């Protein structure tokens, strides 16, 4: 059914059609519309689900963890501070290998407090052991959400679906909402291999000492890397079912002959596509969106940059003291590759700063530099230096 939805409502409906049994969440902008939507669907009898309105994101994550180990498909959503408040539980969920889906309505992290979009929240928990999938539009958000439930079940790795706050969550656009039948066909019933059940008692969350801890953590790493297969397979199967992909591991657009590429995360991919059409229609350019940030698809990335001399990485987060987080990882992934492109780092769109179409020429200009640009924070002139000085 193709119709215009607010992104959050589309996601809420997709979640509801995945038949979660327990949803728990705590209000935080810009996530709230998603859970409100689910609550309304439950209230209207369109979903059979327990919605637990908890006292914190920390509790929300704990509640869905509990629900999942008790054998219920569970879901939560959050953003920003909520992600950080959940952080301890997120690590715990992944370490215990519990299947869960979380929508992160990506938002900046305080301080200064800021409710608008960037990716700092997701980046802050990149090492928690979760699969992290970034969506470039709301169709992908819907499709990825549905796929996430299947991926998490197959891999016993929790999946964080990253959707740009406001930019996607509050955007009305036409979305094809898969039917209940399609989703039921795609998504097997939830079954957890270590469900807590008095008929088959089991102890979860043990104390693991130095003699075993490394093995358990190494297995998490190995399994997370291997999860790329499940992610690709889910996308392929989804394409077989509904006739469209949600981006695999990396989405790429542009001619094979392109020598310059731009890699980004999330909805800015759409901006770049439009800018390329509008502003530099004649420049061969390869645009790429990294859908799968965790596991980091190094091999797919190496293939995707084949033939490029320069790769500009545009990201909406910053690792203070280091620079672009994605750029750093891309450099690491390409290190040692024969004929690897030069990697230029660019940071933009922090805290909801608009990324205008004309960012693209400025990004391309970075490729002209004699040396690779480590980290260029684009568009720094908005706040007058005098004000800065006065505040000092």
């Amino acid at each position: 059914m193709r119709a215009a939805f607010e992104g959050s409502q589309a996601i809420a409906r997709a979640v509801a059609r995945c038949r979660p049994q327990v949803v728990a969440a705590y209000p935080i902008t810009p996530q709230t519309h998603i859970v409100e939507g689910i609550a309304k669907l439950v209230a209207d009898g369109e979903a059979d689900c327990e919605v637990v309105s908890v006292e914190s994101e920390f509790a929300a994550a704990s509640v869905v963890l509990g629900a999942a180990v008790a054998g219920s498909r569970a879901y939560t959503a959050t953003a920003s501070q909520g992600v950080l408040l959940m952080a301890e539980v997120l690590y715990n969920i992944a370490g215990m290998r519990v299947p869960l889906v979380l929508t992160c309505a990506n938002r900046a992290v305080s301080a200064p407090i800021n409710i608008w979009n960037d990716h700092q929240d997701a980046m802050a928990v990149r090492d928690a052991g979760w699969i992290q999938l970034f969506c470039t539009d709301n169709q992908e958000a819907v499709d990825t959400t549905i796929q996430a439930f299947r991926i998490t079940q197959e891999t016993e790795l929790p999946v964080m679906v990253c959707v740009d706050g406001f930019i996607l969550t509050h955007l009305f656009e036409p979305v094809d909402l898969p039917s209940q039948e399609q989703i039921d066909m795609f998504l097997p019933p939830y079954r957890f291999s270590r469900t807590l059940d008095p008929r088959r008692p089991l102890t979860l969350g043990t104390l693991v000492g130095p003699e075993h801890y490394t093995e358990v953590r190494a297995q998490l790493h190995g399994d997370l890397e291997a999860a790329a297969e499940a992610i690709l397979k889910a996308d392929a199967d989804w394409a077989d079912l509904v006739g469209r992909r949600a981006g695999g591991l990396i989405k790429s657009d542009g001619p094979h002959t392109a020598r310059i590429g731009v890699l980004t995360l999330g909805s800015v991919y759409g901006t770049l596509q439009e800018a390329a059409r509008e502003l530099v229609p004649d420049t061969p350019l390869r645009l790429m969106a990294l859908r799968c940030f965790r596991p980091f698809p190094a091999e797919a990335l190496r293939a995707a940059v084949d033939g490029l001399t320069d790769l500009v990485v545009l990201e909406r987060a910053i690792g203070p003291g280091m620079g672009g987080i994605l750029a750093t990882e891309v450099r690491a992934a390409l290190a040692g590759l024969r004929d690897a492109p030069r990697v230029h780092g660019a940071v933009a769109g922090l805290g909801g700063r608009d990324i205008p179409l004309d960012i693209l020429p400025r990004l391309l200009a970075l490729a002209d530099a004699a040396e690779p640009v480590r980290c260029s924070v684009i568009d720094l002139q908005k706040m007058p230096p005098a004000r800065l000085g006065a505040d000092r």
Partner: protein
Amino acid sequence: MSKTTVLDLRELRRRQPRFTGMDPGHRACQGCGQSLAAHIVTEAAGPDVIVANATGCLEVFSTPWPQTAWRVPWIHSLFENAAALAAGIETALKQQGRPTKMLAFAGDGGTFDIGFQTLSGMIERGHNVLYVCFDNEAYMNTGVQRSSSTPHAAATTTSPAGRMRPGKRHLKKDLLAIIAAHHLPYAATATVAYPGDIKAKVRRAMAIEGPTFLMIHAPCPLGWVHAPELTIKVARAGVETGLTPIVELERGKLVSVLPIREKRPVTDYLRLQGRFRHLLGDDPVAVQEREHLQALADHNIETYGLLAREGDVRDSVTAALVRRGGAIR
């Protein structure tokens, strides 16, 4: 020991005429009150339960992977989320129509302090969970640091007794009053000195649909500095001095107490434990703090009406009586 004896005991263990939710082989210290309390609670709760356990001694000593002492389904996630975890499991059970009862276990640190918020949320939302706090009055797992449950004037590693300070400066948090303010169906205190009372309260709580709370006073020989065999005697002295009121609340209202038949001075409790050793001398500070603790005990006795009256059928003596063929039902 011969092989046959080993096998016979293993077989005998399987045939014990009671349900045990825990096995031996756990690494609790000798005389651990918490491990005793946990096994009493799980015995009374029976097999059709799931336990969500906060980080703490109980979790650490019972689950050194690849081993576990638990015979019931059990999960540990974090220090401060036992209540939320239990709430999540309970929600799932309810959603699935499974009648299994949910238990949450935590220490006083995980209850009074770091896990307090999730506990409050769990009770407020009415989850059908029996939350059991094993109160040993300090952060024992990390090496005896003071918690908000540590009694006034007790020495811990972060409230040491010295020339200038006689142990913890602050009072033990009146958690029960805060819990009571949630107007939950049932809240009670108990102590390892009265296993039968614990079992009765667990069963009572299990029979209630909705959030219930049981706080069990559980001496820690290591942290309280007493010989391991004194665990029961210390706990009992806590009751008989009035420092450990054993009460039951329904919807926040006091409905019953374990009356003290013969009130003992608080020094009977203090002198058993090294954590109060600095209070036993004749120096003015020790004398004053002793009097303070006595006043706190007297206040408990007055507030809860703990002194036995004529006609009480059950009191601090009868609750522990034994007879041939077993006393604890």
